């Protein structure tokens, strides 16, 4: 990491209340370009709320979010969302689901299907183009969700606990694939998770959020093991140290 880190996403003093309930209070956080930042914290700490505010799906009560310097007023072409429950249309084939983002943007059918096809292959679903979501396993469904987000070619990928609904083995494979994706795609990733190990494994930067009202407790930037082989990360002393440290600081907030 040399020179000044430019931020793709900047969150500035964002607050969010639902009636009397304060979900976020004066939260500020920067997301460096081309890197993966995790939002980690116990449930109810407002991670998903923050992600949806960045996505433009929820309005903030006060404060601002900037994407490449432009304030967010709603959903935009510069961001794509990966949903926890996949959010696939059960009546549409894999191909139509993946191409749906482009369809909504008015891209012609042949063009969007060609692009979708490319990403279907990239996420490893070749041959399943004409399957329906109910014919796929949970892990494959999330690959469809990922391909849909990649195919609109947004700068920023917002991932809301994308692997929480898939089984453990699939999840590990996903995490490895995600590291490759961060390296190869020149995109900024925002990743919400409640798994400490997952956050430390995949992240360039980890923001630990505390609940009620939500605030950033600490930002951790693992440095030593990011360039290593993916298979040795989990044995790296720094990896283990950080996991322990985060657990020690979060422990008191877990009921």
């Amino acid at each position, binding site marked *: 990491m040399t020179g000044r880190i430019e931020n793709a996403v900047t969150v500035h003093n964002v607050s969010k209340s639902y009636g009397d309930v304060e979900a976020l209070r004066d939260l500020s956080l920067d997301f460096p370009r081309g890197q993966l930042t995790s939002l980690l914290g116990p449930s109810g700490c407002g991670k998903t709320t923050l992600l949806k505010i960045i996505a433009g*799906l929820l309005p903030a009560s006060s404060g601002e979010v900037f994407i490449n310097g432009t304030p967010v007023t709603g959903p935009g072409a510069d961001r794509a969302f990966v*949903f926890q*429950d996949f959010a696939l249309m059960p*009546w549409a084939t894999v191909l139509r689901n993946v191409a749906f983002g482009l369809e909504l943007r008015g891209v012609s059918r042949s063009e969007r299907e060609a692009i979708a096809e490319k990403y279907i292959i990239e996420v490893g679903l070749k041959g399943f183009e004409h399957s329906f979501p*109910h014919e796929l396993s949970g892990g494959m469904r999330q690959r469809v969700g990922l391909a849909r987000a990649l195919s609109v070619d947004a700068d920023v990928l917002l991932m809301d606990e994308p692997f929480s609904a898939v089984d453990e083995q699939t999840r590990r494979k996903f995490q490895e694939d995600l590291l490759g994706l961060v390296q190869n795609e020149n995109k900024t990733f925002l990743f919400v998770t409640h798994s400490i190990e997952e956050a430390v494994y995949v992240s360039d930067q980890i923001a630990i959020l505390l609940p009620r009202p939500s605030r950033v407790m600490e930002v951790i930037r693992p440095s030593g093991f990011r360039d290593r082989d993916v298979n040795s990360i989990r044995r790296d002393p720094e990896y283990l140290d950080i996991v322990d440290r985060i657990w020690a600081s979060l422990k008191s907030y877990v009921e």
Partner: protein
Amino acid sequence: MFARNRALILKVFSAMIVFGAWEVAGRIPVSFAFPTFLESSAAFWTLLVDGTMLKAYIETLKPLVIGVLISAFIGIGLGLWIGLSRAFDWLISPIFVVMQTAPLAALIPLLVMAYGIGLTSKVFVVCIMAMPVIVLNTGGAVRNTSASLIEMGESFLGDRKDIILKIILPSAFPIIFAGLRLGVSAGFIGAILSELKITPTGVGDIITYSRSIADYPSMYAAIASIIILAVMFLNVLERIENYLSQGRRKALVAD
């Protein structure tokens, strides 16, 4: 062989039990006004062959078809609106809930006073029967569209029209169609009721007339014909639905 045709064999068997019980009850007889199954079948055949039944149904189907078409168009439109707007829901839904529970037979004299004894009153009766279930089913289905699918549409830059046409309506389709089927069955009841209560025309005329001259077999044949026609009608609707969803309906339910 048996396994493959089991559904059909059991259906035929079920019909045989009912018709057999009917025949036995007619032969005892439970009442002098209760003809046997065979007598009724003979009367049915006569009515069918001499064209009486065809002529009668052309008359009966007029208010039914007009009423069901009006109910379907207005009903799905209103239901969509109810599902999309809370305020409109509170404003409109109670009317249809009341309509659904109101004793229709008691309202018919009012309709006759207002609209006379012609087609208009009969169409009204069909609509009163058919519309509430179509409106309320459509409204419920639209309101229950998965929130994350709608968020998906918004985050991939779909406008209101896209989200209604490409997400809300397809996802509500199976339940809207179920409402339509229930609406058609209710419309059948309405059409017959209006012929018995307003002016005896069509198949209602056969029932009323045969009763007045104590030709009970013809009366039961007419009643049976209504049931047969209603079942056929619903079967056709189900085929249309299956064709439109190309067998994906089961997938939707499974999801």
